[in-house]
């Protein structure tokens, strides 16, 4: 519980602290959009932060691994030498009041992009970002982080973790980087009293009891996928329920596939890194014209093999799902994580 200590800050002092963060870094926090939509977004003022929200429409990865990202620029003028310039984003960012499931998602990305060779574009952004979680006390109807060891409260991975108490927030400090976010505002933070820590434990237990029943029991699906005991017919049937939008990959906090494209001319251009999805028919298409995953069912199988098999979990240090529930909303067909794990458990649609 806060390796670097735990503090409390009153609700009324909170805007002052957020103001101080805004003066030091780009702050990305939940913000209200159209209608009831809330998303992590760049905020300009403490009042922009929507503290009371269930979930963001999109995970944090958009800011660490943007959907379309210039990673290299070149130019060659008048027959001169070709100039190559890698593009790094070293903006200081504080991700404020983000949900534990989304922090857990970033931890999976950290492992994925750190694999040799390290992905320098991601690493630079990540080095310049701090994660301030807001423990979740209001799980949404599609949420199942409890099944994915990713919430509703974090026990690791955060720089700071906030918990809304009555009239104040508990602030758990997880890292030196987290501690640095309090500097200059020390007077706003009091050491957390025992009662506050007890409240946090009570809230964590209460929140866990509020999740809907029967969300996503992974255990059976993990075993069946790991040992290849899911019938091909079931994959094929689930393939027919995939409408190929790719949305599951794009809303997933842990998915990290991309493609690259060189744009422009020799005289001037750029290399783009673009989000890609394993559900796309041309994702695995080879130059020869051969497609090892030509059937939709094969693509669905590949996706869930990467998400849930032990072999892949070992590589990433975690399964590829944090239980955020976004795929339940976004799947154009009906292959969201809870639905798929339930079908695999049953062995039938």
């Amino acid at each position, binding site marked *: 519980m806060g390796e670097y200590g735990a503090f409390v800050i009153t609700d009324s002092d909170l805007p002052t602290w957020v103001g101080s963060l805004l003066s030091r870094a780009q702050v990305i926090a939940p*913000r209200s959009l159209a209608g009831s939509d809330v998303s992590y977004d760049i905020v300009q003022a403490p009042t922009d932060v929507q503290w009371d929200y269930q979930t963001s429409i999109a995970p944090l990865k958009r800011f660490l691994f*943007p959907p*379309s990202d210039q990673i290299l620029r070149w130019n060659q003028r008048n027959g001169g030498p070709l100039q190559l310039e890698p593009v790094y984003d070293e903006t200081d960012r504080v991700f404020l009041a983000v949900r534990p499931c989304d922090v857990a998602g970033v931890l999976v990305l950290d492992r994925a992009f750190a694999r040799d060779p390290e992905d320098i574009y991601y690493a630079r952004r990540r080095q310049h970002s701090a994660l301030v979680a807001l423990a979740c006390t209001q799980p949404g109807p599609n949420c199942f982080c409890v099944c994915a060891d990713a919430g509703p409260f974090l026990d690791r991975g955060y720089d700071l973790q906030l918990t809304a108490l009555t009239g104040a927030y508990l602030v758990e400090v997880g890292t030196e980087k987290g501690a640095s976010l309090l500097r200059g505002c020390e007077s706003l933070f009091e050491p957390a009293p025992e009662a506050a820590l007890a409240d946090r434990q009570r809230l964590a237990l209460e929140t866990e009891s509020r999740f809907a029943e029967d969300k996503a029991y992974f255990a059976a699906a993990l075993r069946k996928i790991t040992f290849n005991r899911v019938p091909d017919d079931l994959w094929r049937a689930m393939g027919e329920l995939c409408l190929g*939008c790719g949305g599951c990959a794009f809303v997933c906090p842990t998915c990290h596939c991309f493609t690259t494209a060189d744009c422009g001319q020799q005289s001037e251009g750029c290399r*783009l890194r673009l989000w890609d999805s394993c559900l796309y028919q041309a994702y695995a298409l080879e130059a020869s014209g051969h497609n090892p995953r030509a059937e939709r069912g094969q693509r669905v199988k590949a996706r869930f093999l990467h998400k849930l098999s032990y072999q892949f979990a070992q590589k990433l240090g975690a399964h590829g799902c944090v239980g955020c529930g976004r795929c339940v909303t976004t799947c*154009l067909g009906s292959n969201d994580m809870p639905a798929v794990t339930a079908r695999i458990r049953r062995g039938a649609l």
Partner: protein
Amino acid sequence: MPYVASPCPFCGCGCGLYLQVADGLVIGTAPSPAHPVALGRLCVKGWHAHEAAANPYRLTRPLIRRGANLEPAGWPEALDLVASRLLSVKAEHGAAAIGVLGSPRSTNEDNYLLAKLARGALGTNNIDTAARLEALPGLFDLPQYRHLTRAGAGLAAIDEADLIVLWQTDPVEEHPAAAARVLRAAQRGVPVIEVAWRSSQLADRAALRLAPRPGSETVLAGALVQAAFRHEGPPSPESEDFAAAIADLTPERAESATGVAADAIEDAGRLLASASRALILYTRGLTLQPQATDVLAALSALGGGDGGSDGSRPRLLWLGRYSNLQGARDMGVVPYFLPGFRSLTDESSRARFAEAWGAPISTEGGLSAWEMLGAVRALVVMGDDPLVTLPDIASAREALAGLSFLVVLDSVLSPIAEAAHVVLPGASFAEQDGTFTSAEHRVQRVRACVPPPGDARPDWQVICELSGRLGRPMEYASPAGIMAEIASLTPAYAGVSYQALDDSAGGLLVEPQAGVEQATATTTSEAEPSFSLDQAAAPETDDEFPYLLAPDYALRSWGGEALAAASVCLRRELAPGRPLQLARIEMSRADARERGLRDGQQVIIRSRTGEMRASLRLNDAVRSGVLALPYSMREDAAAVMPPELHPETGVPLLAPCAVSIHQV
């Protein structure tokens, strides 16, 4: 603000999304759970819409043709040239020698100004969009057919339906937002009837699959009405001619004409009769076929535009292919109507617009996009792709080559822009303020969230500049002012303002026909479309030509569109493969086996009129006895399946034809 709400720029569904903006670029999209159409979902196109907005193939400078090349130029030079060429054509040959094409993917404001430019500044009623002919071949905007396309149901009707008929449409390919709703309905147990000779991915969920021989759909439509009527479903057809035409159409007769089992027709009739909230979904797979009016007349006899308030008849839902085709038509980008579907023949409407626009409105009827080609000497095009959308591409290309002046305003170098004398770089949907009106008549705000690249300018500013050079200055501070003018002149848009749109959740639904009945004297009764089975049969096959070659309007149909082609991922994902540079023909595995043909093989297709080479692809979704040709490859098949002029409209359409298939 880094997240900006916008409607998706692609199809007519009108899904809401967010554009993610960083450092002056649109770098991503996100779905909107609160949006009434999107419901937090997007299709592959929506997920990559940002690539279409910020793509490296954007036009950034005006281009002027010098010899064989289009060379960069400044705005004043380009605009002066356009104005002087248009004025000289007008002086020499009259205003009717100029044609104007508006855009199904530009804003209402841009289309309105273009209509004003055409009818006011240039003095011609030759204004249309080629996409209108593709989606609803000209005739449906003719007065006698208007009631067929009158405001039907919206997308939410899919959720409310207790029976869904997919009539010659593949929503998974064409309108995924609709497909998602149909899939969910089917999973809830709502019966789905699929009518198509190439089944869609939803076929597995369908309660009934009716796969008529291509060309025999009219017979099937008539037989279904007859069967439903016999099961005491919808009230009997009002038209005696229609009742007589279908009187003898027993399921058995229909079976021999269509190849659809009599039992299945009976079952479908029973389902239609027992449903209380049936919905018939159709797209260009129906409207582009030569017998479209007959089929629609039959389906209307079942339903009618809004299905009747008591829900006793099925509702019809037409979904268009473009984000703002409906809006372009509302804005008067139709040769026969002023904005708001006010008739050109109505003197008071003409007077109203003449006063508002400060220019007389010609009484000379306008030409459709197709009629313009070959008839006009100068053509002004804004964001339209006649070489992608018109059924007869070869003739269109030939006609364009004969123009003495062609100017194209677009954000990318579309195929028609490559043939232009002057190309003007416009703004994308993410670079200017405005509105789109979706197929279900939902008006939504398009927002400028990044500046146009290079020297490109918002289209409305370009039109204003041009109008001034033509001697009719247009003064607007912003597109909001243009919308205020639209609202004052068009009853359907009377309640539309940017403020009202910003305050709304997911835009405002409008009734496009509002106020039109008083203004136009056309009554539907005297213009009842006839239903005829005369042309209704599938082409005869025989031993020499045993297969039917038919255009597939849905199969990978988005790949060739300018917006999709400009996106890296969409080009890869949606462009139909052209193995060996040949058109692709698809046939079922069983048919191929019978002929000893393999997947990927080169074949020759012969018909009574000619032959073509193609690459064969096996696809079990295709009905036995049919060869499917992706519509985007129709030009390759022109010798085998030449476009035929529709007798009523003169618009060329493709009809299935009998062919043989041979190994090379």
